[in-house]
């Protein structure tokens, strides 16, 4: 009992250090008034205002970046899902020799650093003569980059579709569409949503590809944020940008957590 209590307190402390501290600092920094700088001799900012937020949100550069990021993320996520489905189906439902090896290979791209992928992907796009919009280049590259996550999640989802459900639906005379809706979709839905959200979140936060393929004309929130880290580094502005970047992702993460919980296999086992 006391051990549990001690562990609980430890967990709270770690949680606080991990989350509350950086967040708290970011929030405090974002509120520093431009007139009086926050010097190390003050525990809290001497003057507080929402000026930074107003400036930032009123900044047309940020508005464009926000729009870009939040158009890019769902586009990349949908492209990833489209590219993933055939592979995930094969890995999840078709038994073939070397399936486990194929599964591992699909995860391998994750060990390559983003910048390396980005540099050579740019080269590749040049070589195949892609001259289309920066937006589509970045969206496609994001889709490619986050494919391993989606394949991993969805191949497990495809495995969880129960053959007896498909067979039962067929036996009752269901059309292919009805079969898909009653036997496939309920098992795939949590995986589809989870994969969508993971790619969405990753795309919002991704810097390397967005920077190399997109800059200077195409800006996203991370490229804007990193740009602020350069010569005219303004910590309060960076704090505002970080919060703009992170807050929606935290909310999306919480939704994802709920979805993964509802993907509990016991719910789809059929027996009570």
């Amino acid at each position, binding site marked *: 009992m006391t051990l549990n209590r001690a562990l609980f307190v430890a967990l709270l402390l770690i949680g606080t250090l991990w989350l509350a501290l950086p967040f708290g600092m970011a929030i405090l920094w974002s509120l520093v008034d431009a007139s009086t700088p926050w010097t190390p001799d003050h525990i809290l900012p001497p003057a507080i205002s929402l000026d930074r937020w107003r400036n930032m949100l009123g900044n047309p550069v940020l508005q464009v970046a926000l729009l870009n990021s939040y158009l890019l993320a769902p586009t990349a996520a949908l492209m990833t899902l489209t590219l993933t489905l055939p592979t995930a189906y094969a890995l999840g439902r078709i038994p073939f020799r070397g399936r486990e090896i194929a599964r591992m290979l699909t995860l391998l791209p994750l060990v390559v650093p983003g910048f390396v992928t980005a540099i050579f992907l740019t080269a590749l796009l040049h070589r195949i003569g892609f001259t289309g919009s920066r937006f589509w280049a970045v969206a496609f590259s994001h889709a490619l980059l986050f494919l391993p996550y989606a394949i991993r999640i969805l191949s497990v989802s495809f495995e969880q579709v129960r053959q007896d459900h498909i067979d039962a639906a067929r*036996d*009752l005379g269901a059309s292919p569409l*009805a079969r898909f809706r*009653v036997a496939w979709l*309920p098992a795939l839905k949590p995986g589809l949503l989870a994969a969508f959200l993971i790619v969405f979140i990753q795309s919002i936060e991704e810097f390397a590809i967005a920077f190399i393929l997109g800059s200077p004309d195409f800006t996203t929130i991370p490229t804007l944020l990193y740009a602020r880290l350069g010569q005219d580094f303004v910590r309060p502005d960076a704090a505002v940008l970080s919060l703009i970047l992170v807050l929606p992702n935290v909310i999306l993460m919480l939704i994802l957590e709920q979805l993964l919980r509802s993907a509990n296999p016991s*719910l789809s086992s*059929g*027996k009570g």
Partner: protein
Amino acid sequence: MSGLVAQHIRMEFGTHTAVSDAHFSVAEGEFVTLLGPSGCGKTTLLKIIAGFLAPSAGRILMGGVDVTDVPPEARDTAMCFQSYALFPHLDVRANLEFGLRQKRVAHAERSRRLDSVIAQLELGAHLAKLRDQVRIEIRRIQRTHGLTALYVTHDQAEALSMSDRIFVMNRGVIEQEAAPEVLYHQPRTAFVADFIGAANILPVLDQQPLAEGSLVRTPMGALTMAGTVTGPAIAWRPERARILPPGARAVNAFEARITDRAFVGDHIDLQVEINGLIQRLRLPHCPQAVGEVLRFALDLEDILPLEQGA
């Protein structure tokens, strides 16, 4: 589904033959059970009949129509899955409704049928939910609606109590198709004799015709039986042994030394040694202990002739 005919069904998976030459018919309204150990091909055969597997050879006819190439969704069959295969995201009513929707039953008729079934389910929920009762219920519904039913199990008690006929399967072959009582009293092969009830199986070393019946020589000793045996073995059932009082004389009388004795409630299972051979006995009473000797006899009709099996 009206009557069912399977013509020389064969199913091969690579080099493995799951079903070889299954050839039978099931009359309209008949309840037939496919009985056999796991891996005997019974489920494969069921899947072929429901349309989930295409046989390597042979035809399936339903109501006289060849349905071998008809997909399951277009076959007039209803399969009950061992796992129940209920859709977990749908409630009881929606699960029931799914099939009716696919069959394009009109809305009003659908509601009427669902209400009636759910009312019955609610009544049934108050009764004890024993597997026995599910069995009886399946049988009742099948009889009431004159359905042709094919049931797959490895549980012989279930098969014996439910079926009009049982097809005993072993290694992809139907070894015998007969009514439950016929299977028990006249098993065709050693496998059937052993699978349906218990049996002591003895190889036949030699046989001589008698004025009535014949005399067969086995490792247990000579036995007089009612008919003749054409196959390699005979069987006798452990529960058919008649205990002889001391000094009594009888045909097929044996002395048996008890090597193991297990009381299992309504009877006693014994392992006994007869002429150096271990055999099984099943007796309602047994005053003797392990190591002691008892005398028993077998009736002529209790010596069952067996044919060569698969």
